[in-house]
């Protein structure tokens, strides 16, 4: 996925760096929203935060994180947060792994 973005980058704009930077800017807020959503059982907040994080994670190639978000979004839309739905801790842990990978990528 990141390769696709890198192909879009014609070298002058530093697109990849911009994308990663945008990701790092928006992700912590969204993770916070997710946690507050779980704590307060706020399905609406969960749905929106999961959707946005899913979308941006997909764009940076964080496939597993995007999948976690998709499952949360689907459950929140249905209004049933069952035991198989990933929780905030699991999402945070995955994000840390993505961050490490992206930082490494950005440094290339």
């Amino acid at each position, binding site marked *: 996925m990141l390769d696709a973005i890198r192909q879009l980058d014609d070298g002058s704009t530093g697109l990849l760096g911009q994308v990663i930077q945008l990701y790092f800017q928006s992700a912590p807020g969204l993770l916070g929203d997710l946690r507050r959503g779980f704590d307060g059982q706020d399905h609406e907040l969960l749905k929106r935060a999961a*959707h946005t994080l899913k979308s941006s994670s997909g764009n940076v190639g964080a496939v597993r994180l995007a999948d976690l978000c998709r499952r949360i979004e689907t459950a929140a839309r249905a209004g049933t947060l069952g035991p198989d739905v990933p929780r905030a801790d699991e999402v945070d842990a995955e994000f840390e792994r993505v961050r490490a990978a992206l930082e490494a990528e950005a440094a290339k």
Partner: protein
Amino acid sequence: MNLPRVGRLLHTALIVDDDTMMRLLIRQTLERSGFVCHEAHNGQMALEMVPLTQPDIVLLDVVMPELDGYAVCERLRRDPAGALIPVLMLTGLEDTESINRAYEVGATDFISKPITWGVLAHRVRYILRASAAFRELAKNQASLELAQRIARLGSWEWDLARNEVHWSAQTFRILGLEPDAVTPSLELFLERVDQADRGPLKEALTRLLSSGTFDGRVIRLRMEDGNLRHAQMQALCSLDASGTVCHLSATIQDVTELKEAEQQIRYLAYYDAVTGLPNRQFFMERVQQVLSHARRHNRQFGVLSLDLDQFKRINDSLGHGVGNQLLVAAGKRIAETLRADDTIALNERDANPLGPQAQETVARLDGDEFSLLLTELAHFHDAAKIARRLLEELRRPFPIDGTEMFITASIGLALYPLDGEDAESLVKNAGAAMHFAKEQGRDNYQFYSRAMNATALEKLSMESQLRKALEREEFLLHYQPKVQPSTGRIVGLEALIRWRHPELGMVAPAQFIPVAEETGLIVPVGEWVLREASRQNQKWRSQGFPPMHVAVNIASLHFRHGGLIEAVARALRESGLDPALLELEVTESMLMHSVDTTLETLFSLKDMGVRLAIDDFGTGYSSLSYLKRFPLDTLKIDRSFIKDLPRDAEDAAIARAIIAMAHSLKLAVVAEGVEAAEQLAFLQQHGCDVVQGYLFSRPVSPEDFATLLARPQLKAVV
């Protein structure tokens, strides 16, 4: 044809997403492919930017706070500025529901996230190409429609297999129907076609289906408001693989204005621009038509040529403006005079097989020359009568420009078949006769044929001779006795006028009475008869003969407006005759003419003491109720009922009934025209009071009548 491309070379995209990263990536992708990109952060902003940026495509995220993508798309489609812009919606991959929804709100296509960036630009390009093709199609359709609209050309299709009819917008327009209000069908189309053209059109369509050929035609369409429009119609049909007709295509083109132009051209070609009357061309064609009709049906007709006298002088001294006004006024008066003529107008309307146009019988040939077509003439005198009337009418002043203008005309008449066998010679000869009328000093009419002129002249001289006859006392009275059948005594006499002309000898009343009536001379003649009959009767009375009443026939004209009462009073005063010995004979039709004034006249006469008789009874209205109202003394049975008595059972019954009826009204009954003994016997048997006829005596001179009076009793001369 290569039209210059209007507008920008680069395509413009509007990216609508609340996610900055998405906008960034999409922009990056599209800019690399040569797009100019605009971004909107939310739905509201997108709606505001569409009219400003006029994008070639909108990429629209579904999930956005407040106004989501569906709402934006929906609103965009309702706005004319955004209705046709392709919208590519960005949806979740597995979310079929949102994909369906995207199409429902009018999205052109969707692309699911996560977006495969390498593909996005191709998708967008594809959508743009498809949209351009759509737009081109719509544009072609619109320009076709515009072309059809300009040409007033409508098309319609009939799918026979499905029995479906499709009309183009222009077809609806031509038919005057609203596309939303009706369902196109062959029946509806035919309903619009004027009744006269419907049958033939149906036949033509049937022929088209069977033979494959259609006779192009102009059909008339009857609009809702009753107006007629003309439409040129063409049709052809297509065959399916098996060779049967499956499809019919037709065009109709509104050619109403063309038709009107044609009529205008026709008008210019056939009518005179100054007077609006038919011109020479039209007139000659009309003469031709009437001529062939007259040939087939053995009719006579006349061509009248009328030229305004000294019109050139008016034109030269007062100018063409005044001259033209006078021409228009004269043309109008000529047409009105012709229309007012009962015989002509009636014949024109009822008997002329050439339709309403046939009434157009007044034409302006050129300059100040008019021509009239006189059809269905019963007698050439009718033509002379019209000519006289025209001369009279044209002598009346014309109010032009605030003053009164006076003009006379000269008229020439040519009659078919006497004066010409073809249109040209009739018109030429009428013109020649008109010139002859000019030579005769203008303000008169002349027939082309000299023999006609002679007869007309005879009539004219008859008139002047009649006037002289009064002065020269050439009239005289003969008397026919009225006899009481039972006694054979003379109880009365009828005065009958005779004219002894110094050169012609005795002139028959049938020859001069009609002329006297036509010219009004009948009034002074009638006055003379009243005076003379009264004088003669009083003379016999003074000679010692027994009293008898003398009957005088009163002319219709005299009775209605001729000062009859004064004339009777004068006759009685001058003669000294007992009014009871004067009897006035009037006819039924005279009484019926105007009942109120008639009653007044009759009662005035009755007050003077004269006797009143109704003449020729049984030939007119024979209304008993009317008879009761009039102060009558005597009823004369018309000779037609007497003639075949007593053999004719019907006449016998009528005579008997009249006698009985008259007696019930206390009227004396006189039978005239009694010539045979059987008639006398029958009348006597049924109580007829008085008889008159050759059986006793023909009308005789006063001298001979005195001889009859000397006899004690008048015997039948059988």
